[in-house]
């Protein structure tokens, strides 16, 4: 049991490329921290730095009150689950799990107890003598998990462990991982590019972009109050509708102190309702329905803004007039080509500075 603290952690490659530009994160004991971001944002690099597989070129990584910058991976008391599982192909399932314990000189009897217990929890007992290549993807995934839990480490590290599984299994394993982590109460850091996985697993969510942390916090708090337009569009599916406040159509509807400085307005698809009324302080937009996706429980309406904007985005961060996505109950479906009017209440408006880097409170 331990907490993990990253203090101004930096990684600069010999070529001068700065992969991690000063990250501060504090993961409390027993918490589940998820690093999420698009590919190339440095989340895997950061995880590998915590594991000791990448050197740290600046700042401090602290595991359980000990700075581990110069400590070998073996001595950090961590266990890692890799994206491709990284099982030892020449060893049986049993030996895959026992390997780390044998390396630490544990007695065979104790190893047997631990491996069998882990195998029971992960439902691997009948296949302890099999080789990894005789297992399915989901079973390999569980062996990789087993290899991590038998060690009873201070920290679990997960590097996109579910991305090689099919969609159904991914959801099942996601729940399994969460249950297992709750029961073992081991501090965990989990890397994923899937915002749904991130939302469902995390106690603390760290949204990364371009080697920097965009926002840290409780997943729902981040969802409700994204700090930047990047977070706003990355967390939530379909993404938040972002539009420039410059056109008169929107500017005139935004009355208030913050609105004067706001350059970008964001509204989540589910916060729109199709209505002829304009809520007080809210925003209403006329749309032409371009496409409809009916997925059963809900319907997604893709509409284009009716008022043709001649104004083309000129400054960076300014959004060109675009499509609006609206999420409505699955029972409704406007006709394609229909002209509708959607509106969102004042409380559901997200206002950002013109460069999208700062959230403004309405």
């Amino acid at each position, binding site marked *: 049991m331990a907490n993990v603290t990253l203090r101004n952690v930096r990684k600069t490659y010999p070529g001068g490329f700065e992969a991690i530009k000063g990250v501060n994160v504090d993961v409390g004991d027993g918490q589940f921290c998820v690093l999420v971001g698009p590919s190339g944002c440095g989340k895997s690099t950061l995880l590998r730095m915590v*594991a*000791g597989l990448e050197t740290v070129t600046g700042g401090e990584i602290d595991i359980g009150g000990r700075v581990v910058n110069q400590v070998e*991976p*073996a001595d950090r008391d961590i*266990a*890692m689950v890799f994206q491709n599982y990284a099982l030892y192909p*020449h060893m049986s399932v049993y030996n895959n799990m026992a*390997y*780390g314990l044998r390396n630490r000189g544990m007695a065979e009897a104790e190893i047997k107890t631990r491996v069998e217990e882990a195998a029971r929890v992960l439902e691997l007992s009948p296949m302890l003598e099999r080789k990894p290549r005789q297992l399915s993807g989901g079973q390999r995934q569980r062996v990789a998990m087993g290899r991590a839990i038998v*060690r009873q480490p201070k920290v679990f590290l997960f590097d996109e462990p579910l991305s090689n599984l099919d969609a159904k299994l991914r959801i099942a394993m996601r729940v399994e991982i969460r249950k297992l982590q709750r029961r073992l109460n081991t501090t965990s850091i989990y890397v994923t590019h899937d915002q749904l996985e991130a939302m469902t697993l995390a106690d603390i969510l760290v949204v990364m972009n371009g080697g920097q942390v965009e926002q840290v916090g409780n997943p729902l708090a981040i969802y409700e109050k994204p700090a930047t337009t990047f977070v706003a569009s990355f967390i939530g599916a379909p993404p938040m509708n972002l539009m420039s406040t410059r056109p008169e159509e929107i500017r005139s509807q935004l009355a208030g102190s913050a609105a004067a400085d706001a350059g970008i307005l964001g509204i989540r698809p589910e916060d729109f309702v199709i209505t002829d009324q304009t809520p007080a302080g809210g925003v209403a937009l006329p749309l032409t329905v371009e496409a409809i996706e009916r997925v059963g429980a809900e319907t997604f309406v893709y509409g284009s803004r009716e008022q043709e904007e001649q104004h083309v985005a000129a400054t960076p961060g300014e959004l060109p007039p675009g499509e609006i996505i609206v999420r409505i109950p699955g029972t409704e479906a406007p006709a394609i080509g229909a002209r509708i009017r959607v509106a969102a209440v004042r409380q559901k408006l997200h206002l950002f500075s013109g460069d999208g880097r700062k959230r403004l409170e309405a």
Partner: protein
Amino acid sequence: MQKQAIFQSKLLPYALVAPQLAIVLIFFYWPALQAVIQSFLLQDAFGLSTSFVWFDNYVELFRDPAYFESILRTFFFSFAIAVSSLSFALLLAVMADKPLRGSTLYRTLLIWPYAVAPPVVGVLWIFMLHPSLGVISRYLRAAGIDWNPLLDGDQAASLIILAAAWKQISYNFLFFLAGLQAIPKSVLEAAAIDGARPMRRFWTVTFPLLSPTIFFLLVVNIVYAFFDTFGIIDTMTRGGPGKSTETLVYKVYSDGLLGGNLGSSAAQSVVLMIMVIVLTGIQFRFVERKVTY
């Protein structure tokens, strides 16, 4: 898509394969057939009369203790050459696998010796280790070692093994390097996190995962030591001193061309031919199956 090629003329396909067939027939099957025929014949010393003697050449061959000595010697040479060149090549490959600056350069340099022809290898090493000409020999003698491979059979044997192993290192290195690069990096990282130190990591993960490569190279090296060391032996020791470096292949040459006993020489070639067929058979079987872990 049609898989079968269609030719306008019936003769064209035969004409296209003819050159390859001719080469195989003229340079392999015909001499092999000649060797088999020759092995049943006995020729007098002047080559004036030839008589058909059935298996006499073989019977005599297997009754000759010198032949068994040569077999044992060849096995010992093969074993020594294979083990030393494999282990040294593996060491170099493990070193070269590390991501260091200029890796392309030194990898290329390590592969170069393979381009050197066996007789040239022999000459090269004899220049360094010849008792009176050799550069290294002077230091050996200065160090109090009575170095004279021209008189001492064991020293001559070690010289041959050294030169033959050296030449084969490049080839083995290339395969080991490829084998090492095929091991997923994450497996080694997992082992590192699992608490295995570099040496233990090597013996418990890298080495077992290389075992298919090692087996393949073992067979290739034995075949090499059996047959391709002729040029090295011929330039360095000519099978001597005494018969201390006379391997099976060299014996075929010395008995037949130098000793004039064509019948026995042919019988020996046939025995060698059978050996190489067996070795190649083993190699194909296992290489095609590939995965042994």
